[in-house]
């Protein structure tokens, strides 16, 4: 008997705990070899209210068990998203959340208002943690008051689920997590990429045109498990674990460490079937251990 893999993230009922991470799945329309049955939900590429060109190339650099990226949130803007993608999402059998980005709390609110109620859009993931935009991004993620203000601005403009994606570049993630919970977030996503740099020994300068980039991939997994766990200990809303997941065992580390669900990012680049394999692998693990439901997985979540 296949175990019950469904999870509840706030009011949102998902058929499985494995989600597609923002920026690694495009708008879901171009993903090769997509096996929908395994997808709990998708978070679309980060969007701003207005179109953005993104950063100049080179945009990515490989590092040991990881990659740096500085895409710069290239995107078509909210109007094009509503026109070109949302109608397609409306017909899909899994929810799509939009990863929203802005340069001020009020602009976050404006963007949420523009997208609220559009068929096909099931919720929002607030990105307060993008390391690759000059203003905004990380700043909101570092400061509990700013993070709360952004959350409130969005919360005030929509009844849809609001998730907040945290940055790892803080000295105490629990403080930010609690601030965002109090401000009305339905769930936390932990974590976004770490800021990194790689130097080109031919040009004696950074490999990336943006100079720095966000580190993702297996290299960051132990850091991400720790941070997701710390966030989960700090709040009572669900935490979605992200960072370096490429196998069922990796996903299970986050789930045991207190996460309700997980997102898979970079692994999809390497293996287009990664999400399905992670989903199926978690189910097989539960079955082998005799758990009839993911809810029965033992958790390691001491409360302070």
């Amino acid at each position: 008997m296949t175990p019950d893999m469904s999870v509840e993230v706030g009011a949102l009922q998902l058929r499985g705990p494995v989600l597609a991470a923002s920026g690694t799945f495009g708008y879901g329309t171009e993903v090769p070899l997509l096996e929908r049955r395994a997808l709990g939900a998708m978070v679309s590429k980060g969007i701003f209210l207005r179109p953005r060109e993104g950063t100049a190339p080179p945009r990515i650099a490989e590092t040991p068990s990881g990659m740096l990226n500085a895409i710069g949130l290239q995107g078509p803007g909210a109007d094009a998203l509503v026109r070109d993608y949302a109608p397609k999402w409306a017909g899909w059998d899994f929810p799509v959340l939009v990863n929203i980005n802005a340069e001020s709390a009020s602009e976050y609110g404006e963007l949420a208002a523009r997208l609220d109620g559009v068929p096909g859009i099931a919720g929002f993931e607030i990105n307060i943690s993008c390391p690759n935009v000059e203003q905004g991004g990380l700043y909101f993620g570092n400061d509990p008051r700013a993070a709360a203000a952004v959350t409130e601005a969005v919360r005030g403009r929509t009844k849809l689920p609001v998730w907040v994606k945290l940055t790892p570049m803080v000295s105490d993630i629990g403080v930010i997590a609690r601030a965002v919970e109090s401000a009305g977030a339905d769930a936390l996503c932990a974590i976004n990429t770490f800021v990194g740099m790689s130097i080109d020994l031919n040009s004696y300068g950074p490999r990336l045109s943006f100079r720095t980039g966000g580190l993702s991939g297996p290299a960051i997994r132990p850091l991400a498990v720790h941070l997701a766990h710390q966030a989960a200990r700090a709040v009572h809303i669900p935490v979605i674990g992200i960072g370096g997941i490429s196998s069922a065992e990796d996903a299970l580390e986050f789930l045991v460490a207190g996460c309700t669900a997980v997102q898979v990012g970079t692994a999809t680049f390497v293996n287009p079937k990664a999400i399905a394999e992670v989903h199926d692998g978690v189910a097989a693990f539960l079955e082998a251990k005799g758990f009839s439901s993911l809810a029965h997985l033992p958790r390691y979540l001491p409360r302070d």
Partner: protein
Amino acid sequence: MFLLDAPITGRRQVARGMFVIGMQAPEIASTVRAGQFVNLGWSAGPLLRRPFSVYRSDGVHIEVVLKAVGEGTRQLLAMDVGEHISCLGPLGHGFEFGAGTRTAVLISGGLGVAPMPLAARDARQAGARVTWVHGARTAVELCSETEGDEILWATDDGSEGARGTAVAASPDAELVLACGPNRMLAAVAERWPEAQVAVETYMGCGTGVCLGCAVPLQRGGYDRACREGPVYRAADIDWGALPSHLAYAVTA
């Protein structure tokens, strides 16, 4: 697009340090078009897949041509016949061959030979007389496998064919296809704005979802080399903004 676990079926040398690897990948071999590429991964390899143009196809096997320029290519060249490579493809848009083209010139710098055997095949099928101009630093680095109605060589040191670049050695033609270092392609764009060129960028996914392979366009903004490219109308690219010194850029 297919994801196959392809056994290596053969390997041969075609120039100093340059090798062709053959793999059994029927679904890809039977659908690939000239200029398209595959994204290769293998166990204990680097994190990201590595993109390679499809060099030849017989409908069942595909071949890629490569040199060891870094850890990934070094590992690929150390693999034995019978070992498996995970092969994602065919990817990207290839060359376009208008019917009724009478003359075609293929210009390849160094490893830029990679998409040309399929291009030569298709150009001749489209009815064109094919001239292939192949350049390298020196004679022993010229790929020994070229085909067409006319073959021209160019070497930096004049040790074979014309001294100078492949671009300088090229005649004009109705259809100009080029592949090589981005610097060389910029020179092609200068002379033949309508040429079709296959560019190189770093790639994250190869499938259009990461936006890592940005190609700056003359009209502003960026395209994805893996999806809208890797083949472009030469005049469409903002060559000044396209990095031409990728660590893995092949030399002409």
